[in-house]
């Protein structure tokens, strides 16, 4: 099972209208090279699930600026003024989700769960229109699981089997998104031989990864 592919092939898997997840937190731990290639490719009408829309000139933010996203599901857009502008002009749908809820929704999508029961957001605009469940006297929102057609993640060290190790704060949403898409592509800062990673330091088992592309 050869998983290592070219950037050209990687990008060919993302098609107009797809829902994609992209790892990273304010551009830290984002697969920057794949994002750049997506901009080059011109793929459009994307729904992007990510922590945030980064900055106008970095990472996911570039896909907002280029107009390739029709919808974003994120926890934060404050660092990218273009996201707010396009939203106000009706050119971009923005769904804002509390960060921990977003993390659990993605994890649920990957773990075969129907959704998340969380008290976070009760009594705020986040709760509007959502099912409320009372369990043992406490109120919870039902936040549905999220999945994507493709997840684009970043790994610091990736072996030939797709096992991923994340350095420092680059981990964030990457291991969660790696579980929650029909196809997962990891941009590897470094590709190492199978066996080079200590099995205790594998943060994402290779079985989740379909393709590996060198950064």
């Amino acid at each position, binding site marked *: *099972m050869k998983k290592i592919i070219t950037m050209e092939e990687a990008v060919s898997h993302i098609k107009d209208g797809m829902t994609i997840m992209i790892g990273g937190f304010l551009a830290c731990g984002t697969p920057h090279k794949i994002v750049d290639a997506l901009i080059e490719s011109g793929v459009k009408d994307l729904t992007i699930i990510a922590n945030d829309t980064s900055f106008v000139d970095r990472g996911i933010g570039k896909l907002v600026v280029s107009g390739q996203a029709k919808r974003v599901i994120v926890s934060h857009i404050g660092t990218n003024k273009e996201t707010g502008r396009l939203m106000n002009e009706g050119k971009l749908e923005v769904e804002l989700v509390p960060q921990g809820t977003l993390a659990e929704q993605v994890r649920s999508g990957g773990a*075969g*769960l129907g959704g998340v029961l969380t008290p976070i957001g009760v009594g705020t605009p986040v709760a509007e229109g959502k099912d409320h469940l009372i369990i043992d006297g406490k109120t919870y929102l039902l936040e549905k699981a999220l999945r994507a057609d493709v997840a684009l993640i970043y790994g610091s060290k990736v072996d030939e089997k797709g096992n991923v190790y994340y350095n420092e704060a680059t981990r964030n949403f990457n291991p969660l998104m790696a579980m929650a898409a029909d196809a997962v592509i990891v941009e590897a800062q470094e590709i190492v031989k199978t*066996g080079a990673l200590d*099995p205790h330091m*594998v943060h994402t088992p290779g*079985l989740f990864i379909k393709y590996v592309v060198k950064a």
Partner: protein
Amino acid sequence: MDVKEIIARRVAKEFSDGDVVNLGIGLPTLVPNYIPEGVEIILHSENGFTGMGPAPSEDNIDMELVNAGGIPVTVIPGASFFDSAMSFAIIRGGHLDATVLGALQVDEEGNLANWMIPGKLVPGMGGAMDLVGGAKKVIVAMTHTAKGEIKILKRCNLPLTGAKKVSKIITEMGVMEVTPKGLVLTEYNPEYTVEQIQEVTDAKLIVSDDLKPMI
């Protein structure tokens, strides 16, 4: 060839290169011995790792590296260790290509019972319900009868492990696929006639137009 070997050999042909597989305790653990050359499968052990390898030599036994039956094993290069939540996210999230399990009873709807006999034996389900519910392909591998008692039924009468989840039943007598029409006998062991197989099977066997010998 003894009965167990016949079954394990046939099960071993079910996999494609790169498949991620969980093998139940007992007979299914024999399967890796018969995987054809050129096919590499990744074994998942639900107590928390992928890349399970063969048993260690006697002087290399490590009681912190055991399979889900508590038996010492090894790991191969490219392995990864994780906790029970991740292990079952793999199982329940649809990331296992196949699981191979034994059964007390299985029926023509694909129902499976293997975790309790009321008033008699209640070992518990362990991870069996998760495996049956989550794996893409559920293969029941067992002797066709248990000391003469029929196990392949029209309807299971023991409490179910999973409802309508079994894909295929492999015994020493033949291979049966679960289809919307019922059980289709696709392969048979030439030591037996189709009539002899039907005789020890409560479910009506639909004989495939393309019936082949399994050995």
